[in-house]
C-alpha cells in the first residue's frame, strides 16, 4: 500500500533562509500580547509622570525680609550659557586692537580665612573650619596670571595664562577650556614669565623661565571679541572645601581663601597704554577680608584676590537628567516584559515550538534581543523626549535654574537613556534565558542596575565604594545621562551624590554593554547546549 502512493512534496517555494523572518516572527509574538503593549505604554507614562513629580517637588524661592518670590538668584552665565563663577581681583587697563601683555610672576601665596563664610554642605552634619596648619595654605587651583577679557562684566569672554597653586602653568579661556603648560610651583628663584597676545579674535599664550626663550602654551579664538578689551593681571583663590560622604549624609568644611601674587617686569604693547585700575569682579557675599586689592611699586605689582574663574560644578539640582528619574521606573517595567518574553516561553513549553520552527538557536536569541531592544529603545526615546522638555518647563516655572546643554548633549542624554533601557532589556533577556525563570531574572537585573545607583546617590555608601559600584556594575550605564562634565581644572566633589559618575558617559555605557554582551554570549551557549 505504501508503494502505490508517491511521497508528498510541498509546493510552497522555500524562500531564502535568513534572519529577517525570525525578527518578523518575534515582533509578531511581541505585538500580539496585549499586556505587553500596555506595559510599553505604561512605561512611557511612568517616565513622564516621574518627570512631572520631580518638577512639582522642586521649588526655588528667594526670601527677603519674610517676603518670598519664586526663583533663585540668577547665576552668572558664561559665553556658553553655563553658570560660572567669575570672581577674582583684576588689575586692568583697556587695550584697543592688537597688543600683548608680558609679566614675570615671582610668587604665589595663599591663606585660609578664619571664622565666617563657612557654609555647611547639603546633607552634612555640620561644617567646621579646617584645623590650622592641617592643609597647605595655597589652594591647588589658586591662580595668578595675565588675562584679556571682554569687559569687567562677570561672565564676559576671556583668555588667560596663569600660574597655579599646584598645577603648573595653564592657559584657560571662556571658563570651560583648560590647557596645561609647564608644571612646577613658582618662587623667587624659579619665576615664570607669562605673555598673552591678542590679534583680532586670536589669543596666544606663551610662557618662559627667563624671558628670552618662549614656549607657546596655546592659541584660542574668542569669536565676537570687541576691538577694545580689558587687559591686565588677576589673582583668584577658590574656597577650601573638604567633604566626606558616608551613611546618611556627610560632613564637610568650607572656608574662603585668599591668594597673593607678585608680578614684575610688567609691560603692555599696543593700543593706548593707560593707567592701571583695580576691580573686584563679582563681589557678592565675599566677606571684607577676602576682597582683593593691589599695590604698585614701579613695574612690580602685588595683587591679592579670592574666588575663581571657572564653571559652577557639583550641583545636581539644575541638570536636565534630573527630569529622567522615571527612566528607572520605565526600566523596571521593560525588564519585566523582557523577562517574560523569554522565560514565559520556557514556563509554557512554547520555547519548543519556537526552536522547532527555528532550529538555529543563537539566531532566535539574537532576534528576540533585537525586538525587545528596539521596543525598549522606542519606549525610552518617546518617554525621554516628552519627559525632558516637560520636566524642564515645570522646573523652570518653579523658579529653578536649569543648566543649558548643547543640542548634541541633549540628544545624548535622551537617546542615551533610551539606549540604556534597550541594553538593560537585552541583559534581562539573556538572564531570562540563562535562569529560565522570569522572577529571578527580573530581580537580578533590577539589583545590578537600579540598586547600585540608589546606594550610590542616596548617600548610603561611602563615596569610594559608591564610585566603584558605578564603575563595575551595569548601573555604570546611567553615566550616559550625565549632562554636565566634571572639569579637571575645578576642584569639587565629583561624586555620585552630586550627579557625577566615575566613568565618562560613553565608557559607562560601554560597561553596561559589556555586561549585556557577556550575558548574551553565555545565554547563547547554554541555549545551544541545553535540551529545550
Amino acid at each position, binding site marked *: 500500500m505504501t508503494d502505490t502512493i508517491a511521497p508528498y512534496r*510541498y509546493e510552497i517555494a522555500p*524562500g531564502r*533562509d535568513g534572519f529577517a523572518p525570525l525578527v518578523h516572527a518575534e515582533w509578531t509574538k511581541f505585538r500580539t500580547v496585549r499586556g505587553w503593549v500596555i506595559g510599553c505604554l505604561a512605561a512611557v507614562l511612568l517616565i513622564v509622570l516621574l518627570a512631572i513629580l520631580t518638577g512639582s517637588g522642586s521649588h526655588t524661592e528667594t526670601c527677603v525680609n519674610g517676603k518670598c518670590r519664586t526663583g533663585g538668584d540668577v547665576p552668572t552665565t558664561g559665553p556658553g550659557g553655563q553658570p560660572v563663577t567669575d570672581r577674582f581681583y583684576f588689575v586692568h587697563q583697556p587695550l584697543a586692537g592688537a597688543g600683548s601683555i608680558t609679566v614675570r610672576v615671582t610668587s604665589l601665596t595663599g591663606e585660609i580665612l578664619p571664622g565666617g563664610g563657612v557654609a555647611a554642605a547639603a546633607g552634612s552634619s555640620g561644617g567646621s573650619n579646617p584645623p590650622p596648619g592641617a592643609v597647605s595654605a595655597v589652594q591647588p587651583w589658586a591662580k595668578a596670571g595675565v588675562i584679556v577679557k571682554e569687559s569687567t562684566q562677570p561672565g564676559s569672554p576671556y583668555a588667560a595664562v596663569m600660574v597655579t597653586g599646584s598645577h603648573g602653568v595653564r592657559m584657560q579661556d571662556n571658563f570651560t577650556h583648560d590647557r596645561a603648560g609647564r608644571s612646577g610651583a613658582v618662587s623667587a628663584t624659579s619665576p615664570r614669565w607669562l605673555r598673552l597676545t591678542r590679534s583680532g579674535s586670536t589669543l596666544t599664550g606663551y610662557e618662559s623661565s627667563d624671558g628670552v626663550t618662549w614656549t607657546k602654551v596655546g592659541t584660542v579664538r574668542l569669536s565676537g571679541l570687541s576691538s577694545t578689551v580689558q587687559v591686565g593681571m588677576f589673582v583668584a583663590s577658590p574656597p577650601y572645601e573638604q567633604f566626606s560622604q558616608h551613611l546618611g549624609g556627610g560632613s564637610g568644611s568650607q572656608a574662603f581663601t585668599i591668594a597673593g601674587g607678585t608680578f614684575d617686569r610688567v609691560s603692555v604693547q599696543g593700543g593706548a597704554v593707560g593707567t592701571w585700575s583695580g576691580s573686584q569682579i563679582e563681589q557678592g557675599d565675599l566677606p571684607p577680608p577676602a576682597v582683593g586689592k593691589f599695590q604698585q611699586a614701579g613695574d612690580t605689582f602685588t595683587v591679592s584676590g579670592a574666588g575663581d574663574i571657572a564653571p559652577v560644578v557639583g550641583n545636581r539640582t539644575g541638570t536636565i537628567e534630573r527630569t529622567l528619574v522615571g527612566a528607572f521606573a520605565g526600566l523596571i517595567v521593560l525588564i519585566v516584559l523582557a523577562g517574560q518574553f523569554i522565560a514565559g516561553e520556557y514556563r509554557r513549553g512554547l520555547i519548543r515550538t519556537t526552536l*522547532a*520552527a527555528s532550529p538555529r538557536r543563537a539566531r532566535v536569541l539574537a532576534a528576540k534581543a533585537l525586538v525587545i531592544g528596539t521596543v525598549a529603545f522606542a519606549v525610552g526615546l518617546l518617554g525621554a523626549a516628552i519627559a525632558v522638555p516637560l520636566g524642564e518647563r515645570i522646573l523652570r516655572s518653579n523658579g529653578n535654574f536649569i543648566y543649558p546643554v548643547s543640542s548634541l548633549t541633549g540628544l545624548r542624554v535622551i537617546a542615551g537613556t533610551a539606549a540604556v533601557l534597550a541594553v538593560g532589556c537585552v541583559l534581562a533577556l539573556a538572564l531570562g534565558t540563562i535562569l529560565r525563570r522570569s522572577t529571578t531574572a527580573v530581580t537580578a537585573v533590577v539589583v545590578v542596575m537600579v540598586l547600585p545607583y540608589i546606594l550610590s546617590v542616596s548617600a548610603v555608601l561611602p563615596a569610594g565604594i559608591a564610585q566603584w559600584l558605578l564603575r563595575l556594575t551595569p548601573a555604570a550605564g546611567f553615566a550616559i545621562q550625565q549632562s554636565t562634565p566634571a572639569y579637571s581644572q575645578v576642584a569639587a566633589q565629583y561624586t555620585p551624590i552630586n550627579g557625577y559618575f566615575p566613568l565618562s558617559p560613553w565608557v559607562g555605557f560601554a560597561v553596561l554593554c559589556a555586561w549585556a554582551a557577556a550575558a548574551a554570549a553565555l545565554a547563547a551557549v547554554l541555549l545551544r547546549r541545553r*535540551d529545550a
Partner: protein
Amino acid sequence: MKASGEPGIQVTGLRKRFGRTQALDGLSFAVRPGSVTGFVGPNGAGKSTTMRVILGLDSVDEGSALIGGQAYPSLRHPLHHVGSLLDAAALQPSRSARNHLLWLAHSQRLGVRRVDEVLEQVGLQSAGRRRAGGYSLGMRQRLGIAAALLGDPPVIMLDEPFNGLDPEGIVWIRGFLQSLAAQGRAVLVSSHLMSELQDAASHLVVIGRGRLVADTSVAELISAASGGRVELRTTARSEAMTVLAHAGATVASTGPDALTVSGLTPGRIVALLSESSVPFSEVSPHRASLEEAYMELTRDAVEFRAATAEEAAR
C-alpha cells in the same frame, strides 16, 4: 526517487540517558510516506523524548534521527519539512490562535493567507481571533494540528493528539490523519492508548523502556495476536469442553456460555460438536483487538503498572 534523501523519518540507534534513567536505549525505526504510523508505548516509554530528538530539541548520546535524509537542525524553514505538535498547552494564553499561527508563519516566510487556510482546515476559523487561553483542550489540539500543517510539510508528527478530544473529535482526527497519509505524507502519531489508534494507524512502532518492542503493520500484529483461536458460544459448556479437549484442543472458558478454543479450525469444531450432538449457537475465528495485541506485546515493557491492574491480568 527524486528526493534528496529517504523520505519520511529515519531513526537509527538512539541512546539518551537522563541521570540514572536510560530514556532511549538503541531505538531504531522508520516512518514511511503514505501511511499513518502509530507510535505506541506506555507512559514514560520514551515517545516524547524520541519526538523531541527528531525535532532537534533534545540532544542524544548516540544515534541519529533524519528527516528526508537530513538532520533537523540543518533544515531551512523546517516547518516546510516537518509539522509537529508536541504539547497543545504550549501557548501564550493572552495571544489569539490566529496570532499564534501568524508568528509561526512569519518565521517560515509565510503570510497571513496560509494562516487562515489552516485555521479553516481544522475548523477553527470562527474562533481564531479569541484568546488561546480560553480554549478547551480539544480546541488547543486542533490549533496544534493547524500549526503542524502550516508549512504544508511532507512529514507530520503529532504527540498524543487524541488527548482531550470528544468522540466526535476523535473520529474527525482519524479521518484527517488518513487523508494526510493518502496525500503521500508520512504521519507519525503517538499515543499511550492503543484503542485510540484503532482504525487510524496502518503501521505501528511499539516501544517500551526506550527500546523497540515491535515495528509491524496493524494487520500482522492482530493476526499474530489472534493466534488461530476460535470463539465458541454454547449452552452446554462442560460437554463441549470434554469433546474438544478429547480431540486435542486447548479450551478456555471466557464466560458463562463462551469458550475460546485453540488448536482446531472452525470447520473441525463444527464437525466435532455436531457429531457429539453438543448444542452451540456460534463458532467464529477470534479477532484480537488492537488493545489486546498491544497488552500482549508490552507486558514486559510496562514500567508503571498498578498492582491491581497486575492482579487483574493474571
